[in-house]
């Protein structure tokens, strides 16, 4: 059974600081996804990582994938309040259902 674990589950950080969210998964999988969810809202796709060593960046967020370690990271650079949200990683074989991590609730304080 595929399991996906994120840490930390809760993260409170100050504006301007850097931090990394980790996502570990238990079995080999084709793809790794990162989603963002704002309170009361649905899931917004951030990144999809397709292969070992893949790195994607959008603004202050950068995601990477190490398939050998079964690990993905989401790095936050110089955090701003607008990044406050819950971040989910999810893993899926090709054309199949997503298995989600527990989510990391990020709060960026002024």
């Amino acid at each position, binding site marked *: 059974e595929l399991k996906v674990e994120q840490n930390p589950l809760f993260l409170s950080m100050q504006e301007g600081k850097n931090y990394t969210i980790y996502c570990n998964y238990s079995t080999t999988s084709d*793809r790794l*996804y990162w*989603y963002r969810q704002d309170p009361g*809202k*649905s*899931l*917004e*796709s951030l990144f*999809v990582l*397709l*292969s070992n060593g893949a790195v994607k960046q959008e603004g202050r967020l950068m995601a990477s994938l190490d398939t050998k370690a079964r690990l993905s990271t989401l790095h936050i650079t110089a955090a701003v309040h607008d990044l406050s949200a819950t971040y*989910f990683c*999810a893993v899926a074989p*090709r*054309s*199949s*259902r*997503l*298995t*989600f991590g*527990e*989510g990391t609730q990020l709060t960026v304080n002024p």
Partner: protein
Amino acid sequence: GAGVSQSPSNKVTEKGKDVELRCDPISGHTALYWYRQSLGQGLEFLIYFQGNSAPDKSGLPSDRFSAERTGGSVSTLTIQRTQQEDSAVYLCASSFEPTGGWEVTSTDTQYFGPGTRLTVL
């Protein structure tokens, strides 16, 4: 273009009643998924439709849950004899999956609708 839409956005029902939740996927998307999100269980897969293939129902929690997809587009998730533990946000997602050979760089990102919040009293 239009995203995934779901209706109703909120549904309050009494225990034992049946409910129907609707999902309109993004036009042209061949795959459609249902998930639910609850405080205790996180995000859980329910069912997956792809083209004319038999749906993957392996995530449905009981036989009170069923879903259909008509004409390869709109889907309806039905919960019969609702229980309080069915209270959750039900999310629908759709994706485009090519029927031909996969390119190594092709993605099948699932795009989510706004969800239906179901409350069973």
